[in-house]
C-alpha cells in the first residue's frame, strides 16, 4: 500500500497514458492575493517612460477583435524581439502581428524596425522581405547557419516560418527548403527555441504547439456550458479543445532540418497546451534542457539525456505544478538568478485569480515554489503574459517585470474587476529573497493600462540599463525607455561561439561582483513568445570590477578576472575579449549608470 513519491510521480498520467481531456476554460485557481507588506520606502532608480510614438513605433499590432473575441485564436496574441539583425551593435526591433476573422486592416504585417541610433527607428519591413499577415504566435532568434547573422523563426496557426538573415539587410523565407514545412493538418505553432541539444555546434529547433484549432469545429462563445467563464459566454478553450504535440528538429548542418520528435522522446508528451519555450542548462550538467510553460495543464521540463534524447520531468522536479499541486495557466517564462546563488531560477506567469510562480533552483535542476516566501503572491487581479527576471535598477539584485491583459475583452462590462486593459507589474527585489510591488514609483509607463502579451528586454539606446518592448493587442507597441537615476554600475556580456553555436544559445554565465554571484543564460526565447537582447545585462550596485565564468554550450569553461564595469564585453569562445560593436563607452571612459 505504501507509495513512494517517485513511484507515484512516475505513474502519473502526465505523459502518454492519460485519458482524454475534455475540460474547458482558462485555468484559474481563484486564490486570494497575499497581503502586501508595508512599503519599504527605499528609492527605486529605474523609471520607465513609453517612448514608442517618439521612436516611430506607431503601427498597431492587429490581433482579433478589439471588443469581442469569438475564438481563442483571437486572444492569445503574439511576441516580439530585440535583434541586432545588421550587426551594428544596436538593438533593432521585430514585431509579430495577427489578423482578424474577417480580414486584417490594410497595412497589417509583421514589422522590422532598424535602430537609427538616436532613439528612433525606421520601418524596414518591406526591404527586409519580412512582410506577412497571419495568426502569428512567437518568435525565436538564433544564428542557425553560423554565418554571423541572427536568423528568425516564427510560429503561426498555419505554417511556421524560418527566415534566414542574408547579412545584407534582407531575409529569405526558407521554411520549405529547410524541411520545416508542415504537410499535415494545420498546427497552432506556439513557443519555439533554438537549441543545440547535441552540442555539435549547430542550432536545432524546438517548437511547442498550443492545441488543435479550426474555425469549423470549435463552438462559438456560450455554445455550451464549457464556453463560459464565471457564467458569462466567452470563447471556447483551451480546455475542451484537443491537445497538440511538441516538435524537435535536428539541424543537419547544411541548412536543413530533420524532425526527430519521436526519436528524441519529445512527442511522448501529448496532453499539454504548450506555450512559451525556454532552452537553458537548468541542472548544470553542461547540456541544454527545455522548459515549456503549458496552459491549464502541467508544464513540461525536458531533461537532456546527453544522447540525443530527453526525459520529461516537470512534475518530478517541481516545475510542472505549483506548491499546492495545482495546474496553472502557464503563459510566459522568466529565467534568472533572483537570490544570487549562481543557479537559474524560473518565473512563470498565469491567469487572473491566480499567482504567478517563482521556482527556486537548487542547482541540480530541482525546484521549489517560493512565491509566497518571496512575497510575490500579492497581486492576482490580472492575466499575466510577458515577464523577465531582470535587474531594472542596476542595484545588483534582479527584479521581476510582468505585462498583463485580459483574454476576454467583453467581460469587463459585466465584471469590471476584470478589465480588458491593465497595468504592468514591477516587483523590486529587496535583496533578501523577497520582492515589493511598485507602481507609479517605477515610472508612468508602468501604470498605463494596455492589453499586452509578449515583451522583450534589451538596451535599445545603449545607455547601460534594461528597456522593455511590449506588444499591445490592437494598439501600437510600447517601448519603455528606462530613464535611470543614480550611479549604480553594470556590465553587459555578449558571447560569440566558435566551437559552440555562434549565438552561444544555451551558455550559462556567472558574474561575480563583490560578494555576490549571479547566473544568467543566453536564450533564444523567453518572456511570452519573445526574444530579448542577447547581450546579458548585469546590474552591479557599487562594484567596479567583476569576474566572469562562461560555461559555453560546447562544454568549455572560460574565466575572466577583474573586468571593469560599465561596458559591454564581447567574448569570443577561446579568444577572450574582443572589441565590441556599436558601443560608445569603454573601460577607459566609463559611462556610469544609465542616465539620460
Amino acid at each position, binding site marked *: 500500500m505504501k*507509495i513512494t513519491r517517485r513511484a507515484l510521480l512516475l505513474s502519473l498520467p502526465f505523459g502518454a497514458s492519460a485519458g482524454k481531456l475534455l475540460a474547458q*476554460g482558462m485555468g484559474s485557481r481563484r486564490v486570494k492575493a497575499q497581503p502586501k507588506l508595508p512599503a519599504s520606502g527605499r528609492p527605486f532608480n529605474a523609471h520607465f517612460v513609453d517612448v514608442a510614438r517618439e521612436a516611430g513605433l506607431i503601427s498597431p499590432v492587429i490581433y482579433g477583435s478589439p471588443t469581442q473575441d469569438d475564438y481563442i485564436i483571437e486572444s492569445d496574441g503574439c511576441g516580439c524581439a530585440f535583434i541586432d539583425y545588421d550587426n551594428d551593435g544596436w538593438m533593432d526591433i521585430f514585431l509579430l502581428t495577427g489578423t482578424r476573422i474577417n480580414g486584417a486592416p490594410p497595412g497589417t504585417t509583421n514589422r522590422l524596425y532598424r535602430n537609427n541610433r538616436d532613439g528612433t527607428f525606421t520601418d524596414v519591413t518591406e526591404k527586409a522581405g519580412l512582410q506577412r499577415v497571419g495568426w502569428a504566435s512567437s518568435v525565436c532568434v538564433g544564428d542557425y547557419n553560423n554565418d554571423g547573422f541572427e536568423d528568425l523563426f516564427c510560429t503561426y496557426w498555419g505554417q511556421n516560418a524560418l527566415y534566414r538573415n542574408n547579412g545584407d539587410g534582407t531575409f529569405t523565407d526558407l521554411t520549405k527548403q529547410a524541411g520545416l514545412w508542415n504537410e499535415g493538418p494545420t498546427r497552432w505553432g506556439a513557443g519555439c527555441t533554438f537549441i543545440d541539444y547535441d552540442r555539435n555546434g549547430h542550432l536545432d529547433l524546438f517548437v511547442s504547439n498550443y492545441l488543435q484549432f479550426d474555425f469549423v469545429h470549435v463552438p462559438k462563445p456560450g455554445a455550451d456550458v464549457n464556453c463560459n467563464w464565471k457564467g458569462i459566454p466567452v470563447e471556447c478553450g483551451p480546455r475542451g479543445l484537443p491537445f497538440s504535440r511538441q516538435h524537435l528538429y535536428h539541424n543537419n548542418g547544411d541548412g536543413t532540418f530533420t524532425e526527430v520528435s519521436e526519436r528524441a522522446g519529445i512527442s511522448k508528451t501529448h496532453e499539454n497546451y504548450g506555450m512559451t519555450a525556454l532552452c537553458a542548462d537548468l541542472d548544470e550538467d553542461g547540456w541544454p534542457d527545455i522548459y515549456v510553460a503549458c496552459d491549464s495543464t502541467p508544464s513540461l521540463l525536458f531533461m537532456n539525456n546527453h544522447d540525443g534524447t530527453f526525459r520529461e520531468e516537470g512534475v518530478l522536479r517541481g516545475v510542472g505544478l505549483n506548491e499546492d499541486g495545482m495546474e496553472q495557466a502557464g503563459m510566459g517564462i522568466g529565467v534568472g538568478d533572483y537570490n544570487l546563488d549562481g543557479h537559474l531560477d524560473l518565473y512563470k506567469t498565469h491567469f487572473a485569480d491566480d499567482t504567478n510562480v517563482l521556482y527556486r533552483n537548487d542547482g541540480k535542476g530541482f525546484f521549489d515554489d517560493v512565491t509566497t516566501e518571496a512575497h510575490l503572491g500579492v497581486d492576482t487581479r490580472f492575466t499575466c503574459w510577458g515577464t523577465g527576471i531582470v535587474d531594472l535598477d542596476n542595484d545588483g539584485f534582479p527584479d521581476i517585470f510582468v505585462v498583463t491583459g485580459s483574454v476576454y475583452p467583453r467581460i469587463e462590462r459585466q465584471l469590471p474587476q476584470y478589465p480588458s486593459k491593465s497595468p504592468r507589474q514591477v516587483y523590486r527585489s529587496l535583496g533578501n529573497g523577497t520582492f515589493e510591488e511598485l507602481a507609479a514609483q517605477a515610472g508612468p509607463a508602468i501604470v498605463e493600462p494596455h492589453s499586452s502579451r509578449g515583451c522583450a528586454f534589451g538596451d535599445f539606446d545603449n545607455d547601460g540599463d534594461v528597456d522593455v518592448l511590449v506588444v499591445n493587442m490592437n494598439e501600437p507597441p510600447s517601448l519603455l525607455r528606462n530613464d535611470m537615476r543614480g550611479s549604480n554600475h553594470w556590465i553587459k556580456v555578449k558571447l560569440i561561439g566558435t566551437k559552440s553555436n555562434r549565438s552561444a544559445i544555451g551558455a550559462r554565465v556567472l558574474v561575480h561582483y563583490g560578494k555576490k554571484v549571479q547566473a544568467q543564460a543566453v536564450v533564444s526565447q523567453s518572456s511570452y513568445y519573445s526574444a530579448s537582447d542577447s547581450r546579458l545585462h548585469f546590474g552591479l550596485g557599487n562594484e567596479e570590477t567583476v569576474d566572469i565564468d562562461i560555461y559555453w554550450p560546447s562544454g568549455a569553461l572560460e574565466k575572466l578576472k577583474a573586468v571593469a564595469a560599465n561596458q559591454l564585453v564581447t567574448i569570443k569562445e577561446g579568444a577572450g575579449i574582443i572589441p565590441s560593436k556599436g558601443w560608445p563607452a569603454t573601460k577607459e571612459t566609463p559611462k556610469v549608470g544609465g542616465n539620460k
Partner: protein
Amino acid sequence: MRCLKNILVLSLAFCLGAWASSSLSASGTSSPGETTILKAADVTAMLFPERVFYQGKTAPTELRNTGGVRFADGAYFLAGLVDSSGYSTAVRSKYQAYLLTEVPVQFGGQEVKAGAYGAGFVSGFFVVTDIGAHDLLRVPSVHDMAIKRPIPLQVLAGSVAGTYRLYRGRDYVEFRRGE
C-alpha cells in the same frame, strides 16, 4: 485419451486465466481479494465518464486528475476533478470534483450512500453535494504542509488500516468504507 482431453481443458483454462490476469494487470486493477488504491493511470474512460451531469448541465472531467479505491470485493470508489469553469461562482466554489461510489463511504463519520456526487474543498471543509448542488455533508478537511510535490487530485492510504485520504493538492479528507 480422456486424460489428454482433461490436460487440454486444464491448459485452456490456465491460458484463459493467465490472459484474464494479464488483462487486469494491464489495466492497473488488482486481483480479487485485495484492496487497491487507484492512481490516475488506472482510471480509464471505461471506469470514469468523460462528461458528468450536475445541476442541469454536463461538464467535462479531467481523467488525468482522478484516483480511487478498488475494494477487496471489487466495488469502486472513484473521484475525479471536473472543469466547472462554466458554472456560476457560487457553484464552482464547492463543485470541484465528481465522486462515484458503488458502496457507502464515510467522511469524518458521516456517510454517503452509493451514488454520484459533487464535492469540493471549501475554506477548511470538505463538502459533498448531490447532483442538484444540494449540500449533503460538510466535514473539516486537513491542509497537509508536509506532503512533498502534491498533485491536483490523488488518493493515498489513511492513518490507519482501512482508511484513505482524498487529496486535492494539499487539502485532504479521510474516508473509509461505510456499512
